[in-house]
């Protein structure tokens, strides 16, 4: 009896899992399909599932915009912001996890609360700062903004991973003469590497998908792939097929990257959860 119940619950759980996965994947599948349709096929109702595929949208997209320049900006900005973010967040999370004071929790909560501020609220001051420091439409400028906007999440994730490490291990290291830098480098980082890796992956994904600052602080030079996608939307004229082709090109690298690293990502995100 128990066995039957176990089996049916596995099927049920599998069913729920597959259904939610398919629901989540459907928009991506539909976008992929639309990218191979002609503009008129893409808007036909009822929607077409079978049609003669065409590559004309990809050709049009490539003719009008330099995909590789945008992709390079996305890559440089996501990786740059992630590395800079980790360089700041690792020492911060180390201090918060192992040397907490009365205010540490408040400080962490305050950091997180900055994520609740609508970005547009600080658009004009940020724009003026960027204008005066010559950072408008530069990769450096976007790296700084991405770093700062993801820092609360990165610090929080690292903090929760570091908390899992017994303090005694670091103490033993200190007894052997390791100073803070050596403790982080030789003990903490190797012990929490899966957690750090998944934090880095998440940060890369968040940077890659960021659209508000990418659109507002760039013009012709530093725009990443989100700006590339935005250039194919139009209030006048059919554009779904071309927009889908541009979106497919823009999400392809991060999708492949996500698939390749999903084991690492899941391992990192559940790191310590089974203790």
């Amino acid at each position, binding site marked *: 009896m128990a066995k039957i119940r176990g089996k049916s619950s596995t099927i049920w759980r599998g069913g729920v899992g597959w259904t939610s996965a398919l629901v989540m994947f459907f928009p991506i599948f539909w976008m992929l399909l639309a990218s191979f349709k002609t503009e008129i096929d893409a808007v036909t109702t009822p929607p077409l599932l079978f049609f003669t595929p065409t590559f004309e949208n990809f050709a049009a997209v490539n003719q009008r*915009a330099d995909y590789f320049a945008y992709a390079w900006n996305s890559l440089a900005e996501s990786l740059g912001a992630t590395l800079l973010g980790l360089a700041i967040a690792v020492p911060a999370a180390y201090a918060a996890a192992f040397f907490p004071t009365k205010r540490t929790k408040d400080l962490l909560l305050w950091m997180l609360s900055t994520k609740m501020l609508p970005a547009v609220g600080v658009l004009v001051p940020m724009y003026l700062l960027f204008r005066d420091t010559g950072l408008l439409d530069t990769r450096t400028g976007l790296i700084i903004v991405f770093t700062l906007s993801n820092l609360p999440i990165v610090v929080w994730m690292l903090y929760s991973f570091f908390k899992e490490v017994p303090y005694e291990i670091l103490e033993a290291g200190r007894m052997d003469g390791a100073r803070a830098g050596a403790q982080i480098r030789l003990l903490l980082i190797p012990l929490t590497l899966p957690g750090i890796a998944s934090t880095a992956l998440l940060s890369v994904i968040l940077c890659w998908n960021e659209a508000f600052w990418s659109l507002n602080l760039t*013009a012709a030079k530093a725009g990443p792939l989100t700006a590339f996608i935005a250039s194919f939307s139009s209030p*006048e004229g059919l554009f779904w097929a071309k927009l889908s082709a541009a979106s497919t090109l823009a999400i392809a690298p991060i999708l492949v990257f996500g698939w390749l690293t999903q084991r690492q990502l899941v391992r990192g995100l559940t790191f310590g959860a089974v203790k």
Partner: protein
Amino acid sequence: MRQALSGTAVVIAAVCSVLGTARAETLTIATVNNSDMIIMQKLAPRWEAATGNKLNWVVLEENVLRQRVTTDIATKGGQFDILTIGAYETPIWGKAGWLDAVDNLGADYDYADIFEPVKNGLSADSKLFAVPFYAESSFTLYRKDLFEKAGLTMPEQPTYDQIKEFADKLTDRSKEQYGICLRGKPGWGENMAFLGTLVNTFGGRWFDMKWEPQLTSEPWKKAIAFYIDLMKNDGPPGATSNGFNENQAAFATGHCAMWIDATSGAGRIFDPKQSQVYDKTGFAKAPIEVTPNGAGWAWSWALAIPASSKKEAAAKSFLKWATSKDYVKLVGETQGWVAVPPGTRKSTYDNPDYQKAAPFAGMVLKAILSADPAHPTKDPVPYTGVQFVAIPEFAALGTTVGQDIAAALSGKQTVDAALKSAQDDATQTMQQAGYIK
């Protein structure tokens, strides 16, 4: 000796200044992703080759572009040298000193060839602040085959009562065929563009001469009630999410018998690649009711130079090239005459090649020439603009009113309640902005 030195200095300065003006510049141009602009981007390398200058393109969706460019211009960020700008912002930004005047592009630039109403829409304080790239009005597109089958005839200028009569007869929900497709998506440039013209021709206006909002007046009530009744009986389901594109798609795939919208839709409906009804579509003027004033809208996309640009000379040279008669000719010869930017120049409409390629040209021309932003309503008004009011407060107000009316269209509130709420919003906006006490 001193004289010789100063003479040399003058020569050096002169040489430098000549070199300076001839120096190749890299310009950043912000534009929208509309088909006419895509063609401009495609042809621009010819201007680059001729002048040695280089263009960097920033292409964005209209609303994103508007926000992006406003931020840059208001903070004097100086990121752009050339802007694509609409007829709503041009006079406001020009007055605010954000744009360079462009009425001095040289003796060889034919200003007289540009249609007067289009020029008026882009001027403030008798100065031209942007040169028109293409212009449009609104008119009625209809399916000739369906009209013929039902034994109906579309007059050259129908009344809205006739439109309702036709729509009732041509709606067949079992075939997903709707008598009429109109904009329902809320926004000052979306549903309010159409509703602005509807209210105008029903005899209404946004404000009286003292800037008092008139949104609960009888013409507004009649016009909005007419619109909602028409859409409920003969419009497609879910109309509150339909803007220009959605209606274009619905019309192009044979779901609408009539569609009242931008004249620029004509070229797209006539293109077999974009439309299944390209050979079955007829055109008529925008419908009227009690007055012809403001029945069809006036809009143009134009090119302007922000005052913060430091490369004004090169920017002017591009403006001159992209809005010239020669450019129209170039597009006609390389992309086909049906693709030339419409609505700005008399010479385009005099051209036999264009007349042959664009059978809708005559109707579009009449629509554009009769849409006068200076006299948009039956009763006098203190503002200009047909489907908008050319004041900075209008974009937000128009969108709020658009949301109120969309709520009435979806059945969430009555027409009276929607207009009462719209009137309250308008009164508050005008009080805060200091137009009324």
